[in-house]
């Protein structure tokens, strides 16, 4: 979990001051060093700001009235943050905001929370998550702004109490200088190279992707599929490759350094995303920046990045046949690939570049500080 805390300076003019990014974690069994650190923070707080300490303890007891150990864990988590005096706090994940909700009063500053994907799309539907849904509702009521990575997420979050006036869409972004098409001419090759990157998890739908690849092979297309990424479903992906007899056609690269990923993207002919759920995939944006046509399942905000027929093709979720058809169209038409790839690059430069995103963040933070969002309409 990361939490971005904007450093305490009184007037924010122009740009923002140094940002502190804190990793939030409070492991069950802290090391001796962590306990010592905690004791130090506790004592410091006792002397500098005892009423804050009182509020923390009250909050911890309210959160975890069941167990002393849990309450103590809460106190341990809140104490180092209680010494901070931020002007804005930004939680990058809903769950972090929920866990640290009691801190909002203690800081008494505007809080922004980001809605990125699975915590809005998936988690609320899993049985036994009522507390989480309550937490979403509570945080949406208390924050000054809610950052959403896509329009779709903003709509979805309204199910859990998001006031659309507080929602602000800022798309993920990519550095187009780093992720760019290759300058070198493409070596002509009969192999149709498809790439996908992402964590090996069920949300990414790799079984469907591999079935699509099998379909292409059955139709006589000389395809090669590069899978970049690691994750808990490694065994499932490996098993499926063997079961579908695709050992010679699919390569599992595991985790790669960003430069290696760029190199792979530059040598590929198409990017495939078979996810069953997404906020808005960064991996797809990176591929677009490298001039790759995209075949993606139509989930989450993917249709906000890829328009069917322009930057690539959108397919229904869990539909290997549709994926194979779309890939087949690209395989047989190099001119189509070139045209779509070029549209992708243009799209990134227009709407998903890093510079543009930074602008949007600055505007959002300033608006939040001025309390503008409370009154103004939802601005893009």
């Amino acid at each position: 979990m990361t939490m971005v805390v904007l450093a305490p300076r009184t007037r924010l003019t122009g740009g923002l001051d140094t940002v502190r990014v804190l990793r939030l974690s409070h492991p069950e069994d802290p090391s001796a060093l962590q306990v010592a650190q905690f004791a130090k923070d506790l004592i410091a707080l006792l002397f500098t700001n005892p009423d804050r300490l009182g509020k923390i303890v009250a909050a911890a007891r309210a959160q975890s009235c069941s167990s002393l150990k849990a309450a103590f864990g809460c106190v341990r988590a809140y104490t180092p943050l209680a010494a901070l005096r931020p002007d804005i706090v930004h939680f990058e994940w809903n769950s972090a905001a929920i866990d640290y909700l009691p801190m909002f009063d203690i800081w008494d500053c505007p809080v922004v929370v980001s809605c990125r994907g699975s915590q809005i799309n998936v988690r609320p539907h899993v049985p036994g998550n009522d507390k989480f849904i309550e937490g979403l509702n509570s945080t949406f009521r208390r924050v000054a702004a809610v950052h959403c990575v896509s329009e779709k997420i903003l709509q979805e979050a309204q199910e859990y109490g998001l006031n659309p006036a507080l929602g602000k869409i800022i798309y993920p972004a990519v550095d187009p200088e780093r992720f760019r098409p290759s300058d070198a001419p493409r070596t002509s090759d009969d192999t149709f190279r498809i790439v996908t990157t992402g964590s090996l998890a069920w949300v990414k739908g790799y079984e469907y992707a591999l079935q699509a690849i099998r379909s292409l092979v059955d139709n006589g297309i000389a395809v090669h599929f590069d899978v970049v990424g690691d994750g808990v479903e490694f065994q499932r992906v490996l098993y499926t490759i063997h079961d579908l007899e695709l050992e010679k056609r699919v390569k599992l690269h595991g985790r790669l350094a960003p430069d290696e990923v760029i190199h792979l993207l530059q040598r590929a002919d198409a990017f495939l995303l078979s996810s069953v759920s997404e906020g808005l995939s960064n991996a797809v944006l990176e591929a677009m920046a490298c001039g790759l046509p995209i075949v993606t399942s139509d989930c989450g905000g993917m249709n906000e990045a890829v328009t069917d027929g322009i930057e690539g093709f959108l397919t229904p979720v869990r539909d290997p046949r549709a994926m194979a058809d779309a890939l087949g169209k690209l395989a047989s038409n190099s001119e189509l690939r070139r045209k779509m790839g070029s549209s992708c690059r243009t799209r990134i430069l227009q709407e998903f570049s890093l510079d543009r995103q930074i602008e949007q963040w600055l505007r959002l933070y300033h608006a939040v500080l001025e309390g503008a969002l409370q009154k103004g309409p939802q601005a893009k």
Partner: protein
Amino acid sequence: MASPGDSQKEAGMRLVLVVPAFPKLSETFIVSKFLGLLEKGWDVHIACDASDPSEWKKFSDLVSRPGIRARVHCGWPHRPRWLALVLLPVLFVKSLLINRRGTVRYLKQCWSRFGFDTLRRFYLDANLLGLNPNVTHFEFGTLALGRMHLKEIIDSKVVVSFRGYDLNFAGLENPTYYQEVWDRADALHLLGDDLWRRAQRRGCPADKVHALIPPAIDVQFFVSGDRRHTETTGAPERPLRILSVGRLEWKKGYEYAISAVRILRQQGVNFEYRIVGDGGFLEALAFARHQMGVKKAVHLLGARSRPEVRAEMLWADVFLHPAVSEGFCNAVLEAQSMALPVVCSDADGLTENVVNGETGFVVPRRNAQAIAEKLILLASNPAVRQRMGLAGRQRVITCFQLIDQISAFDRLYRQVLQNDPGKKDIDSQDHLFRNLTRPSSASP
């Protein structure tokens, strides 16, 4: 620990089943085998790493019998490591007290072979050393790795079972992963022909002594009485009742089941789908039913006890098992025993479990459309369901009864003890196994 003594060993009937945990609700076959062999006069013991008291309560037939607990030997913990180190001398003394000759012999022989590694091996093997068995049976392939030295050192025959995971997943990257087992086990036990072929693909020689003994279930418990399939289903007043029972993991293919029932919804066939079982894949399935718009009709019931599973099977019209990978599957046997027609995939051992067109339908795996077609067919055809249900019941009685499985193991162990090198393929199950491809017409 029971005192072994060499005299009991000479009687020749001491058998130890090695399992990770005992008893386990998901491994009732071990409990049944244990009790069944005990009846047949074997001096059976269990060597395990863990024994959860809450699981004991779920097995009334275990708890009720006297002297059972004394036959279950839990190994001492090997994590955390420092604890094991502290307990090692204690274990050493205990082992000497129980079986002095055996312990000394073990240490001497291991030392010459393994040097300092002897200490680690001793800690893990102490259980077996104390029991001094005639036959040691590793119930899962992976358990036998690094333990084959026991054959010579404690002078025991070794049998190793392969059930699915061990051949399909464990050590796939290593071509010689099971070499020591192929070389030194006295006999292999596999659930079926599909697994035997997989073993050979992983380096097992074609002439290795092996027995194909399919799983078995308690057909007296899983019985449906005079339930008949008579109703046409699929209408709102009488939806089709679909049941799946199995661990919530990706291998069970429940995502394809949920996509399949969505097709039913689209074609106007009303259904209620219950999935019994628990596991880490819950999140994926909860999301899938929401995404496919079938949340109200797909129920994730969590884990259930055996009597509750039986009750659900009485409720159901059809049993659905769309696994992507499956060694053999006890739940499908139980469903057939309850006279439920089965729709299952063609993964691994399922093709030997269900007879396509007779006790159910076997469809290509990862194919929601194919599943949906068969479900729709069964929904509107109570006569077909009834015929298939009866055929399933007969088949289980003929081929998958506990009593026959116990007899097969009994024969296997006796032959292994006789150590007849002339017999390459233990004859115990040939006749029984051939029945699996042609169900007999014997009455239940």
